[in-house]
């Protein structure tokens, strides 16, 4: 009897340890020297951060479009966003919530396509609560009251989930960093989105423009920061995009 109890406790340990805030994985101890000379046993310890190779065969073209987007940002998009900042922040947050809520069907469909059923039911619950109690999505009460935050999911991620490679790096005019997989993803999302069916082309472009400019007005000058800090902003954004997409897909 005691044997059973002990093994039960052991089992309990084994079940809990790999989960949340666990302790000591035996294999990784000793990778990093605690003291002494900093030579090069580090390569192994940092193996998980293996550099991400981004295939960029049309770099000169991409850099050209990057330059164009840079000008577009500083001479058109950003001034408009700065103008929007006269609107009080809470109102702009609500506008952002409204558009995020409208995009719920896209996220829901992609969660279903990946058989992430828990995420899909969360998405559905968020949509129902925020559309009703959150007054047509203006308030994200599912997050504020229910603690269920929005989780991004798009068709590019769905394709990645099923093993589609990113392909080469591609900078799109206006839209920015992308790749063939995510271009197909954009097209897929367009068809999963109810908005294009409800609006005519100009209304759709207007809605998208308001959404993006509103987001940009809430952004804390991320692009300016990258331009200020980085030796080569083009490379930084290229590699950051690849890293971020990969992390989103792996989630």
């Amino acid at each position: 009897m005691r044997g059973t109890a002990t093994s039960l406790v052991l089992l309990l340990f084994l079940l809990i340890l790999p989960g949340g805030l666990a302790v000591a994985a035996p294999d990784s101890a000793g990778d990093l020297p605690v003291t002494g000379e900093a030579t090069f046993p580090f390569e192994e310890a940092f193996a998980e951060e293996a550099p991400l190779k981004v295939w960029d065969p049309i770099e000169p073209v991409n850099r050209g479009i990057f330059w164009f987007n840079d000008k577009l940002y500083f001479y058109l998009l950003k001034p408009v966003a700065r103008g929007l900042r006269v609107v009080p922040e809470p109102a702009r947050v609500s506008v952002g919530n409204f558009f995020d809520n409208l995009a719920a069907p896209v996220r829901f469909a992609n969660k279903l396509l990946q058989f992430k059923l828990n995420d899909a039911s969360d998405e559905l619950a968020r949509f129902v609560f925020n559309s009703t109690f959150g007054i047509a999505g203006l308030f994200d009460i599912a997050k504020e009251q229910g603690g269920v935050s929005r989780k991004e999911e798009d068709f590019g991620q769905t394709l990645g989930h099923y093993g589609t490679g990113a392909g080469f790096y591609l900078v799109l005019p206006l839209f920015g960093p992308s790749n063939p997989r995510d271009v197909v993803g954009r097209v897929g999302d367009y068809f999963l989105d109810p908005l294009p069916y409800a609006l005519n082309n100009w209304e759709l472009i207007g809605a998208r423009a308001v959404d993006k400019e509103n987001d940009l007005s809430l952004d804390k000058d991320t692009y300016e920061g990258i331009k200020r800090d980085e030796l080569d902003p083009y490379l930084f954004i290229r590699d950051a995009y690849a890293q971020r997409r990969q992390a989103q897909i792996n989630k």
Partner: protein
Amino acid sequence: MRNGLRFQKFCIQFTVAALLVMAAGNTMAAEPLTQVRSTVDEVLTLLRNKSLPHEERRQQLTAVIRPAFDFEIMSQWVLGPNWRKASPAERQRFIDLFTDLLEATYIGKIEAYTDERVEFTGQKLEGERAEVETLVKTASADIPIRYKVFRRGERWLVYDVVIEEVSLVRNYRNTYGEIVRKEGFPGLFARMEEKIREFKASKAAS
């Protein structure tokens, strides 16, 4: 029946004991989070203190950040294969420049969130390494920032900052590698010096 009850009692006792042991383990391990928290809090306090003269604030920020980060290890890893090709003088030169640059970059990135709330949401321990998870709560979004640390003696030193799933060090490794390949070390150093000059100029201006 009696046996069953005794068995249950055993299970409960052992579970409680197990939980206690785990709780004790966790308090001992709270170290990385506590250390990163105190660094981040100090940095934010300094950034929020607008009455401090600029030069003095910069010096105090340096005094907080330098001992908390391991710029030497970061430098080695960022240069990767190029580290081995570099002469000792070039290595030292790189460490110095990289330290200045990364410090300024980190301050710049966290400065944007000076007015926001930073929550410390947890830590993951893995032997000599750990990850401290933070969440910057802005009005419109929660931005996850993770600090990767490893133990060196008594202290946990930061060797990477991961902002929204983008590891800074991993990104630098690519960028710097590419610049060294195209322009060699002289080109890289020139670019880094140029950036540092820009930082100093903008800091003096503001």
